[in-house]
């Protein structure tokens, strides 16, 4: 493939937008320019959300010895089942046509606002993710700070929902959501700081550019392939699971304990909005993980750069989400005190040490030859030794047991 055609594919979305905008009068062009970006993100990630739900149900089904949804086809063609791919659209129609029940005792305004707020804030985070070489909706210098500010606000909406429902389960869920927010925002931020330290910037696009090198053309310089980056990525993954309320950290909506947590008193489309926001949050956090640690839109092999960068980004995003679904199908839920303990006694100390590790990595960037091995060894030791020691402390007094038999 020639460089020109590769470049055309790379910029095709932008060219299409500019072509559309040029038909408008000049004063409207700026407005339309932004509007098209917003609509494109809403459409792409709306559809992505729809298919994530169906992928989740199908994957979970396969993990559980069953098929998952496979019946939904098109309403006017009998016999065409499309492997159940239209299930999310049927679900959307169902959610829209269901009765919207508001409890008599609920705070009506907050009860209505909470689902709107949660969707709005979870969508805002998409603004700073670099989806491709030229595709970043808003180029902010402090993009990372913006991302976390918007992401943390979704927890506020969960608290609003829990409080306004006037339901004890919802209230407990709201408390849990806040405890979880306070506990996991810290390791999440601390796991990201090393990346900022090494890349020297808060801009997501520049962080991706900093990972755009290859050794011998096939070993990408993604941050995840360094000791500090790997540790950071693991901490980020755990904290991201907790931030997006996914299993094993889905305490606010712990089905077996709190019925549906803050969603107990929601029905119809408001419930669907929460559901949507949860998946938007998950997608955004996965996108951030891809951006910070997995090289963003960079190709894994130098020779594969002709494939448009946004496809690489989407591929990595899908891989992350499949991983999250896999975790959900596998693990048990933690208890709230164990959840906070895991954060404060394990993740936060590790993340702080990892920050020092990144500083060491940055200081020794000039080392070469055999010193390279020393650099890797020291850096790996800084992560692994505390990991083993802290992990042992966390699990102290517990383990498999042997049993005796009555005579």
């Amino acid at each position, binding site marked *: 493939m020639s460089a020109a055609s590769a470049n055309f594919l790379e910029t095709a979305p932008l060219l299409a937008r500019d072509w559309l905008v040029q038909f408008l009068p000049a004063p409207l062009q700026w407005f339309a320019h932004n509007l098209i970006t917003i609509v494109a993100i809403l459409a792409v990630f709306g559809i992505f959300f729809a298919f994530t739900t169906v992928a989740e149900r199908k994957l*979970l089904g396969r*993990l*559980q*010895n*069953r098929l998952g949804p496979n019946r939904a086809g098109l309403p006017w063609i009998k016999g065409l089942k499309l492997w159940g791919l239209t299930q999310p659209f049927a679900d959307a129609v169902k959610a829209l046509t269901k009765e919207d029940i508001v409890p008599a005792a609920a705070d009506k305004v907050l009860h209505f606002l909470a689902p709107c707020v949660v969707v709005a804030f979870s969508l805002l985070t998409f603004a700073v993710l670099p989806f491709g070489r030229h595709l970043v909706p808003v180029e902010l210098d402090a993009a990372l700070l913006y991302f976390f500010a918007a992401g943390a606000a979704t927890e506020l909406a969960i608290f609003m929902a829990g409080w306004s429902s006037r339901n*004890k*389960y919802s*209230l*407990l869920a709201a*408390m849990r959501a806040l405890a979880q927010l306070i506990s996991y925002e810290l390791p999440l931020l601390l796991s990201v700081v090393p990346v900022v330290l090494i890349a020297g910037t808060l801009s997501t696009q520049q962080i991706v550019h900093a990972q755009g090198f290859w050794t011998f053309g096939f070993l990408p310089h993604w941050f995840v392939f360094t000791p500090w980056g790997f540790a950071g990525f693991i901490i980020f993954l755990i904290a991201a699971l907790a931030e997006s309320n996914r*299993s*094993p950290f*889905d*305490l606010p909506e*712990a*089905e*077996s*304990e*709190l*019925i549906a947590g803050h969603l107990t008193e929601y029905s119809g489309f408001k419930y669907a909005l929460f559901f949507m926001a949860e998946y938007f949050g998950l997608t955004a956090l996965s996108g951030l993980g891809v951006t910070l640690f997995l090289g963003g839109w960079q190709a894994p092999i130098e020779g594969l750069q002709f494939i448009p960068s946004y496809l690489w980004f989407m591929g990595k995003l899908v891989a992350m989400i499949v991983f999250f679904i896999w975790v*959900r*199908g*596998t*693990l*048990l*839920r*933690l*208890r*709230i*005190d*164990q959840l906070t303990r895991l954060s404060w006694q394990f993740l936060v100390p590790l993340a702080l040490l990892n920050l020092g590790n990144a500083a060491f990595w940055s200081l020794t960037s000039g080392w070469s030859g055999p010193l390279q091995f020393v650099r890797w060894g020291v850096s790996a030791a800084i992560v692994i030794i505390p990991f083993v020691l802290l992990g042992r402390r966390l*699990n102290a*007094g*517990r*383990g*498999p*047991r042997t*049993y*005796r*038999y*009555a*005579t």
Partner: protein
Amino acid sequence: MTNSDPSSAAAAPVNSSSGIGDFAFGGFGGPSVRPVNDPFHGDLLEVSMGPQHPSTHGVFRMVATLDGEVIVKLKPVFGYLHRNHEKIAENTSYLGSMPYTDRLDYLCSMSTNWAYALAVEKLSGQAVPDRAQYLRIIMAELTRLVNHSCLVGFLFNDLGTSFTPLLYAFREREKIIDLFEALSGSRMMCNYQRFGGCRVDPTPEWLARASALVDNFPRFLDEYETMLTGNEIMLARTQGVGRLDPKHAINAGITGPVLRASGVGYDVRKVDGYGFYPRFDFRVPLGEHGDTYDRYMMRILEMRESVKILQQAFRELPAGPIMDPKAKLRGFRPKPGEAYGRLEGPKGELGFYLISDGSPNPARYRVRPPSLINLTLLEEMCLGHTIADSVVILGSIDIVLGEVDR
């Protein structure tokens, strides 16, 4: 639940050493519980869990008083499924109650049938042919596999997995349930045992299928244990949670795996040696800590022992009749007298107490339901643990509301 009058609180001083935490349950080793009427730490929250709740295993209700998330008081409420079982049985012929016993513990109808048949046989002094004795043991142990695999699956659901372990357990359960259906015509309401024998003789194909299933069952257990028993979250959620000490357990009359998890070696199969159990070679596993993890492991280990019993039963199954030829099912009138028949059900000691006055109906019919009696110490096990643990503890006790409420 606040104490509105501070002076009354001062008059009856409550501190942590004389509070409810130490009053009755201090020996349980759980976290300390603050007194219910402590006026200094804000309000307590009373949550009514059930009767419509995903984790109460039916229509059971727990009224939990919470301090934050910690349970300081828990009141079990049941009776939502009360169906007047005993009174109905007293107005029905002896045989007529047999299908109704299926509905007591609807997961283990084979065992419940057998317990009832045992009581009636004691009352009338009927003999049971050898082949029927073996078939009864086969059915009872298959039922134990069904019950324990279900229980373990539901326990993991209570622990917060999204159905995966439950569906793996259900895969095995369905195979056994299919066998029951092939034999008795019904998946769960088997109505299989009769006084003096069994209702249907299994075909050789059925026996071959069942034997193959039993031989493959340890593979499922190994798979299950590899995936879950050593899981760190599982250990953290269950070890040390819901301790039950042997003294309390014995005093409350708790039986079955819950009692054995506390380290008391009491198994009616060994104690009474009913049926042909003395001929079988099996061991009774015992726990040490009496916590949720031990109760879970008891089930796993008991399933392994059940597999051994079943394999031996399939090897030794004799030919012959399955019903006592002198048995009289219709117009059955036992001599006046009383009898208590009990067996080791999957959930504990399951007993039927019958008084006959010579009429076709029992004059008194009483069930000793292990689920209900094991449930009596729920509050003691839950105090000081969080609301999330209460669900897990309830799951580990293994109740079926059909049997609790009757």
